[in-house]
């Protein structure tokens, strides 16, 4: 796929930009990546990423997929998306500074501008967190 800079795909910016790259999109499944930097906004004082950071990373990964699809369809600006609902979130472990998060987003149904997604984030092939989400995309 053509590689777009993440700033073209999602509206979030530093200090709360939580995706480095949309790596691949294929049949409604997206893969993203984030290297956890020491100055990440979501790092707890124990040097681990807070659960809120994992959730935000998954939400922005879904947003990057939505941005990719919108730009393919001719949009010039990435759409603004809000988390509407988080369901069945499970955190197995919190990644640490230096870890690279690899996330898979799978699109579910879309009803009235609300997109259902599932997301799973792994570090070194171990699942750190998974969740379902409803994301409200502002037209």
């Amino acid at each position, binding site marked *: 796929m053509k590689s777009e800079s993440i700033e073209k795909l999602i509206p*979030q910016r530093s200090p709360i930009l939580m995706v480095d790259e949309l790596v691949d999109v294929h049949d409604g499944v997206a893969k993203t990546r984030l290297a956890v930097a020491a100055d990440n906004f979501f790092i707890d004082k124990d040097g681990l990423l807070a*659960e*809120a950071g994992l959730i*935000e990373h998954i939400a922005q990964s879904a947003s990057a997929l939505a941005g990719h699809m919108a730009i393919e369809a001719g949009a010039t600006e990435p759409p603004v998306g*809000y988390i509407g609902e988080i369901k*069945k979130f*499970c955190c197995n472990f*919190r990644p640490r500074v230096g870890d690279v998060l690899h996330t898979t987003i799978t699109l579910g149904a879309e009803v009235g501008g609300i997109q259902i997604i599932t997301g799973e984030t792994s570090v070194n092939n171990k699942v750190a967190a998974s969740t379902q989400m409803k994301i409200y995309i502002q037209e």
Partner: protein
Amino acid sequence: MRLENNYYEITGTRCDTTSGTFHIALLKDCDVYRGHFPGNPVCPGVCNIQTIKECAEKLVDKTLTISTIKLCRLTAVATPTVCPELDVTVNIAPTTAGYAVTASIADDKHTYIDFKGEMMSV
């Protein structure tokens, strides 16, 4: 990340052993609004989840991690101008693994988030 005195400050507390209401003021100059979103400050839903966790930590006087979220609904868009002052209400019940936590953040007009999940002490 510690959001107390960065994203919000607590201006009043009413607590017993299993529940608490924390009156908070959102700090509109928090760094997070530079990026969420440029020129359009909106409270990140995840910051409100973290706020709930920090209030739960005060209630049990322990450091907690969120192990599961059964359901968390973000039912209205919060911003530091739309809702500068909010009530964070947290209820806690001990379980074998930690605590079952139900919580919400609201003002007299709207509920912005309601949360049902499990937290464990670290």
